[in-house]
């Protein structure tokens, strides 16, 4: 079958189009494009069906597993596909690893090294127990995240634009340093022992719950990441759609109850609003895909 590839402006993207087997899949098409263009590896390609001009519908994105025939109109043996370059892509694993590495390394710098000398303070003399526990809690949290990235999470085919690496690292690394600065400050004022214990205790319980949520999510997919969208069930997923985000938010709340800094609470508010947006989108998506989802939830 002949595939004609156009850019979004209508120009022919590959002169003369591509010739593929009648039984070829979208993945085969992606491979063929990659072979011809060298630069555009499959995860960079965004392939859609052409949308009639003036129509405000969102274009249909080709699924890499489907066969090209599924997208052909009627009995025609030709297909026109719109190509868009998504720019350099990185795998989610790579993205997450660098995001989380920053906080993991930067926080201990404020604890162990005489950083505050450069802010005009004399060398720290007193370290409160809560500051040490906060260090362990924080580093454990980001260590856990990195381990989950490599051993638990099952990522779908998706990648992320390279620019997100800079944006996300800026977010995590800046907030990490901002919080670390205040918790380890020589003039830090600790909360009561009881409040610290409640905070960290609650936080640890939520981290364990969060880990279990990740296990549940992992089991929805096969090891290669296929499985697509599914409704998570059991445990806290019976109460909320994104129980993993819920437990993550409460875990940070626990950290803040124990350490009590404005910086930490600002981070909590920002992180909560981001995760809330994600959760609402996922809930909407699941409702669309599984329209009976609403009847039970």
């Amino acid at each position, binding site marked *: 079958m002949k595939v004609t590839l156009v850019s979004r402006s209508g120009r022919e993207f590959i002169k003369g189009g591509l010739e593929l087997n009648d039984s070829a899949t979208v993945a085969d098409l992606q491979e063929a494009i990659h072979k011809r263009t060298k630069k555009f590896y499959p995860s960079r390609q965004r392939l859609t069906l052409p949308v009639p001009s003036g129509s405000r519908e969102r274009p249909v994105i080709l699924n890499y597993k489907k066969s090209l025939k599924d997208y052909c109109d009627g009995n025609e043996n030709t297909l026109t596909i719109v190509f868009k370059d998504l720019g350099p892509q990185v795998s989610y694993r790579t993205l997450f690893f660098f995001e989380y590495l920053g906080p993991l390394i930067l926080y201990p710098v404020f604890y162990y090294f005489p950083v505050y000398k450069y802010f005009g303070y004399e060398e720290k003399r007193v370290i409160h127990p809560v500051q040490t526990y906060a260090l362990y809690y924080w580093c454990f949290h980001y260590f856990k995240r990195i381990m989950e990235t490599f051993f638990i999470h099952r990522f779908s085919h998706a990648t992320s634009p390279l620019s997100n690496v800079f944006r996300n690292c800026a977010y995590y690394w800046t907030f990490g340093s901002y919080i670390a600065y205040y*918790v380890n400050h020589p*003039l830090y004022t600790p909360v009561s022992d009881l409040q610290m214990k409640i905070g960290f205790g609650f936080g640890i319980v939520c981290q364990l719950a969060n880990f279990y949520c990740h296990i549940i999510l992992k089991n929805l997919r096969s090891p290669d990441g296929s499985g697509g969208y599914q409704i998570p069930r059991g445990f806290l997923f019976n109460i909320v759609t994104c129980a993993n985000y819920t437990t993550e938010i409460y875990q940070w709340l626990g950290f803040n109850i124990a350490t009590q800094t404005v910086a930490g609470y600002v981070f909590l508010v920002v992180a909560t609003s981001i995760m809330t947006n994600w959760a609402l989108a996922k809930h909407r998506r699941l409702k669309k895909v599984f329209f009976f989802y609403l009847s039970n939830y």
Partner: protein
Amino acid sequence: MASALTVLRRLYLSIYNWLVFIGWFQVLFLALKALKESGHEHVYNAVEKPLLLAQSAAVMEILHGLIGLVRSPVSSTLPQIGSRLYLTWGILWSFPEIRTHILVTSLVISWAITEIIRYSFFGMKEAFGFAPSWHLWLSTFLVLYPTGISSEVGLIYFALPYIKASEKYCFRMPNKWNFSFDYFYAAILALGIYVPGSPHLYHYMLGQRKRALSKSKKE
């Protein structure tokens, strides 16, 4: 009923825009007068009252956008008004030592001309339904934005020693919320924001201009 509200809206916006226009006209007039008669060191004192009033009135525009009275998105008016209020109250009003700097003159004149054109344009549109010389405004920003922004950045920079010395608006540790705020570092951060912010804004304005000029060509 709807048309009565429309008339009310237009009346209110006309009055608002023309009032603020008068404010900025005063600023320009008094600035040029002081410059000619006494020199650049005295410009701020001459314009202080109408400047503070006219610039602070712009906060109303955020409200207008929020309640839907005007179409401008809050996301673009907020940073613009934010930076103006920061310079007006956070730098000039707070640190008298900087008021005699020559950049105050270039700042005030750049702002005044821009606002005079902008408010008269909107004032005409709301009052009469049309406004001429849209192209004039779109092209003046090519000069006024760089001069205005350079003046803003320059004034923040030259005010830094006074900010550091005065300790004004600083909140220190220890306190039970483990919070601190240093106005000096905040000013440095503000300067940093101008680095990506200014080209972004200028680029956006260039796009607006191109679009409006091509649209009028088609008419």
